[in-house]
């Protein structure tokens, strides 16, 4: 049971990350090409796994799962994208910074920007072209919808431990994967975050899932998820800082190799990418989880 939930949490974290990478340039694949192909297998795997995780649910609960997943996708996800990628202050001070620090050298200059553009385009398609002009309206309607969505989740959760009683299900994994980054990221412009923090039971819910399923007692991976380190978070801590320096040197070396590979034209993008993904410790992937959207 626990295993299945853990897996679900894991998988959804991976899933959500694919969500973020899938719209980015193929260049991103250089970083975790291995992961992507694996994730795609996992997504199909997830379908089966999901039913395992939802093994205990009644048919009605299964229906509810589907409904709430839709609610998240329709109301929360676009606004999350907006919060992390389109809101200028957040993007510049948090998301881009984080990506610039994590992504290897030649890419960190344009990759965040490319992703930013993709996200803007996506939102434009969803909300129509006029939304960028009318900031006030956006604030009013879409953020209101998103806040309402959070409130609805909070109401649905009530005082329960998980959405369907005492045992976790795939819905929990999904909700967690959406909420944790919002809760833990240090956003300069955190209107939605404020609202989430005011919903005590959702916060507790996230923290309890973090401590239950992401304790990373091995110590080796610096537990990105339980102590989600944003860009600033990392600096506060001695150990991750050191770790990042190590990472950085590896990254610089890889970047040089990559650049050479590109220039000589021998190595294709995918080929060059396998390296970093393989070498990067798991921390990388965990950190990413809170970055998605």
């Amino acid at each position, binding site marked *: 049971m626990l295993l299945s939930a853990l897996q679900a949490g894991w998988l959804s974290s991976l899933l959500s990350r694919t969500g973020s990478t*899938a719209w980015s340039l193929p260049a991103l694949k250089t970083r975790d090409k291995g992961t992507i192909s694996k994730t795609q297998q996992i997504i199909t795997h997830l379908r089966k796994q999901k039913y395992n995780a939802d093994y205990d649910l009644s*048919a*009605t609960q*299964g*229906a*509810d799962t*589907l*409904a*709430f997943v*839709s*609610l998240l*996708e*329709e*109301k929360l996800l676009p606004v999350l994208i907006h919060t992390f990628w389109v809101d200028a202050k957040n993007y510049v001070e948090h998301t881009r910074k984080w990506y610039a620090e994590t992504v290897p050298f030649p890419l960190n200059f344009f990759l965040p920007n490319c992703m930013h553009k993709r996200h803007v*385009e*996506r939102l434009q*398609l*969803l909300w*129509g072209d006029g939304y960028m002009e009318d900031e006030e309206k956006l604030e009013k309607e879409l953020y209101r919808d998103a806040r*309402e*969505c959070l409130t*609805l*989740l909070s*109401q*649905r959760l*009530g005082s329960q431990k998980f959405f369907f009683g005492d045992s976790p299900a795939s819905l929990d994994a999904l909700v967690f994967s959406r909420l944790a980054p919002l809760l833990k990221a240090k956003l300069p412009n955190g209107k939605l975050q404020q609202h989430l923090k005011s919903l005590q039971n959702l916060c507790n819910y996230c923290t309890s899932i973090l401590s239950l399923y992401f304790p990373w007692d091995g110590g080796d991976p610096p537990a990105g998820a339980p102590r989600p380190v944003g860009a600033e978070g990392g600096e506060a801590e001695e150990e991750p800082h050191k770790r990042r320096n190590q990472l950085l040197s590896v990254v610089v070396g890889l970047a040089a190799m990559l650049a050479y590979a590109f220039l000589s034209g021998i190595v294709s993008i995918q080929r060059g990418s396998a390296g970093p993904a393989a070498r990067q410790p798991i921390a990388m992937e965990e950190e990413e989880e809170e970055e998605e959207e």
Partner: protein
Amino acid sequence: MEVRMKGRPGEPGLARQQLCVCGEQLSAQASAAEPWPENAELYQQLKEEQILLSDNASSLAVQAFLQMCNLPIRVVCRANAEYMSPSGKVPFIHVGNQVVSELGPIVQFVKAKGHSLSDGLDEVQKAEMKAYMELVNNMLLTAELYLQWCDDVTVEEITHPRYGSPYPWPLNRILSYQKQWEVRRKMKAIGWAGKTLDQVLEDVDQCCQALSQRLGTQPYFFNKHPTELDALVFGHLFTILTTQLITDALSEKVKNYSNLTAFCRRIEQQYFEGQDKDGSAAVAARSAKRSLLR
């Protein structure tokens, strides 16, 4: 020129716009208190030759909702309804001097006027209702759009001729392709572009299954009283059931769930038949039904 003289590089007629905004807010507050007028109108595309499955479904959902609230509405068909709508989406209602489009905002607008179907629900039920409404929008509506604009046979045989029907050549082709391109880009953005028709039908089935589960043997989704969720589900399922498409695959999926079809029939009988004779919503429902018989 006059603006520049005043040394104001801002908008022309800035002052006037602000006035208008103030005016609108005032009138919004005022009209919130106003009762529902007799001459409220709902705009949609031409019923017989133009309107598409998804728009018809959304329109029927709003009509059903207003019927459930017992608010009179006159359906007006305009070829340019889509462009008249402030959000570019059909249907929209014109009440007093307010224009509101789509079911969500209409529900809120009606609520501001003191009519609500979901007041009797507790918090959890409200959350579930919202979630299920999003399920319908996310799955059924998107599936309808997919079928209309991404299934090549349907596009060629039904969508393009209908969508372009009010326009002369070559505008009919241009506008149809423009719209098709726009919808396909949207599909791409939400990850539906890569799906096959079978996968989409599978999604519809999943959605219907969830709805059917949720409905169970109750008359409405939340016990004895209809809510906006009932209106929305009715709008979509009834339209799917009664619209003649290239294949019956979509309606077959719905027909598998007998409680859903019964639900549609029940709402149709209760709110669209035996109403006033000129009830245009009833006419809409009936005309939709005719197309089923054809």
